[in-house]
């Protein structure tokens, strides 16, 4: 890709969307990666030759996917309101979640994942537990009690959603209102997860996040990671420049590793190069510099109590 002029960068040369090129200099496109690899690392005088382009493309994309899973810090966020069904459908490019939060009263409240199952499939049962089948032999399904009660707010929580201080019946004494505080009643409580916020559990196969009933009509913010494939639009796939050399090394290693009759020392050399470059790129991306360290160290003399 050619370098952009300032006008192209800031205003996309006057065409909408004008913000299209903002920040684009951080990235190298997939098209460039494949093109550069074919030009510089593949050919008659290179370790790799006579290799189909689709193999190079495959390994380039796989490399970018792997980087998106753990090396890049490119977290996407999606806010949706949770309605009656208490579900949040996972985004189309969702691979894994980072954090689920409730956005309320100007605060972003991180939610805890419910370790218990909160949704289940159910089969329609007759007397004696007999099942009913459709004409095509599939069993007739029903809504599970687990789901029904969760949605109705009848499900008890292990996370203090019930019986906490705010749920106690208050009483008046000499003009002031008081509430019981359950002192000593929560032995064994997992303090790490104990809070008043709603809980959730991700049903990966169903592609939804199931919430408890306290999430009804609330705004949920899902922070998640994708695989960087941009919905299959190859022209939009890109990789941070800090990882550019790593991607070339990754493609080279992947091809050599699966190619017949390549000497082991050549494969090992490629593997070491790839690993070292990944490590370097991760360090670079972590952006450790004196200014940041200084700010962190300023807290060392802070009085805790």
């Amino acid at each position, binding site marked *: 890709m050619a370098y952009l002029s300032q006008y192209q960068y800031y205003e996309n040369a006057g065409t909408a969307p004008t913000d299209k090129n903002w920040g684009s200099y951080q990235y190298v496109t997939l098209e460039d990666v*494949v093109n550069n690899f074919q030009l510089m690392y593949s050919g*008659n*005088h290179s370790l790799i030759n006579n290799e*189909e*382009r*689709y193999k190079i*493309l495959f390994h380039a*994309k*796989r490399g970018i996917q792997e980087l998106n899973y753990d090396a890049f810090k490119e977290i996407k966020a999606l806010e949706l309101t949770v309605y009656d069904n208490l579900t949040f459908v996972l985004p189309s490019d969702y691979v894994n979640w980072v954090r689920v939060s409730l956005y309320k009263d100007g605060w972003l409240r991180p939610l805890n994942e419910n370790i218990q199952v909160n949704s289940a499939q159910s089969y329609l049962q007759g007397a004696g537990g007999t099942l009913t089948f459709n004409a095509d032999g599939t069993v007739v399904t029903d809504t599970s009690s687990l789901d029904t009660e969760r949605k109705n707010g009848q499900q008890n929580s292990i996370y203090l959603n019930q019986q906490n201080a705010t749920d106690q019946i208050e009483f008046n004494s000499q003009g002031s209102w008081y509430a019981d505080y359950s002192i000593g009643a929560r032995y064994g409580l997992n303090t790490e997860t104990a809070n008043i916020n709603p809980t959730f559990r991700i049903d990966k196969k169903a592609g939804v996040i199931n919430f408890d009933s306290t999430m009804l009509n609330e705004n949920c913010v899902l922070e998640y990671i994708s695989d960087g494939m941009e919905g299959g639009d190859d022209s939009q796939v890109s990789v941070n420049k800090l990882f550019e050399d790593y991607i070339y090394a990754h493609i080279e290693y992947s091809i050599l590793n699966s190619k017949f009759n390549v000497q082991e020392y050549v494969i090992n050399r490629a593997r070491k190069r790839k690993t070292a470059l990944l490590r370097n790129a991760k360090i670079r991306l972590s952006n450790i510099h004196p200014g940041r360290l200084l700010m962190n160290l300023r807290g060392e003399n802070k009085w805790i109590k």
Partner: protein
Amino acid sequence: MTSFFLLIFVKKKAMINAVRNTVLAILNKNNYGYISPSDFNLFAKQAQLDIFDEYFLGYNSQINKENGRVSGTGYADILKGYEEVIDTFSVTASLSQTLLNQYSAPTAATTGSDYYLINKVLIYSVITASGNTTAIGGGNTQLIDNTATFQTDGIAIGDVVSVVLANSVVTNLSVVSITNQTTLVVNVASLTTTNIPYSIYKKVNLKNEAEQVNHSKITMLTKSMLTAPNTTYPAYTQEGDTLTLYPDSISSTGRVVSQYIRYPKDPKWTFVSLSAGEPIFDQSQSDFQDFELPEDDVNNLVARILQYAGMSIREIATVQFGQAIEQQENQEQ
């Protein structure tokens, strides 16, 4: 002051005549080795094809030598010489669309020459505008389409207009000016009728190379999540003289352009009349065709033709002589 322009026409000496003279001189020992012009033309064609073929083998052999560190650079760069010769047969032409995403491989009828090797197939990544002409004008230089929006589409001077005027041949015209939303002016007065299908492309968009994929892989490739062909990474398969482009959306006139290596033209030693039983060489004949190989192949051509001619007249000594010359040439390489 009067300016004088002196035009000097240097007529290239026909290589084919020199080759023929040499061949006849060798064959004519004992006066029984004469070959007719038509036989010579046949042998010449065969010899040229043989040597042309060997350029590709020699090219590969030279690469192996370079990888073995037994080849030099600069004047010792033999590979460059091979490339230069092969590139003289390079042709870039738009392929003729036969049906939807199927295009005809280069042929004499569609691109002007048959292909020896399709080196690459490029596609325009974007069609800037397309449609059918609705009127003619401007001395057949105007492309008029009442439904078009040329200015809105961003058509610019120099853009490529692909049309099929006759016999499936794609003609590429160039935009000279944009009159208004529905009218363009092209560089050649060729739009003589209406309802001509056209597609307009920007030259910078001729950048995506289609990869040749064999039939055993293409089905899996199209099913692949990560590597299915798309307009950024298109692919094609070949069946007979038909190239099938993937994805299917590549189905417009002129969208597919091929750079290929054509066969050398058939050499033809032409003559005007017989003088004392001898045909007199005349290169001004319309069907005259010289060898297309470089001059340093004269020895090779002579050696090859001698072998064919020797076989023809059952003169084994001639065949052996031709083989000896050829062997010597090969050793020198």
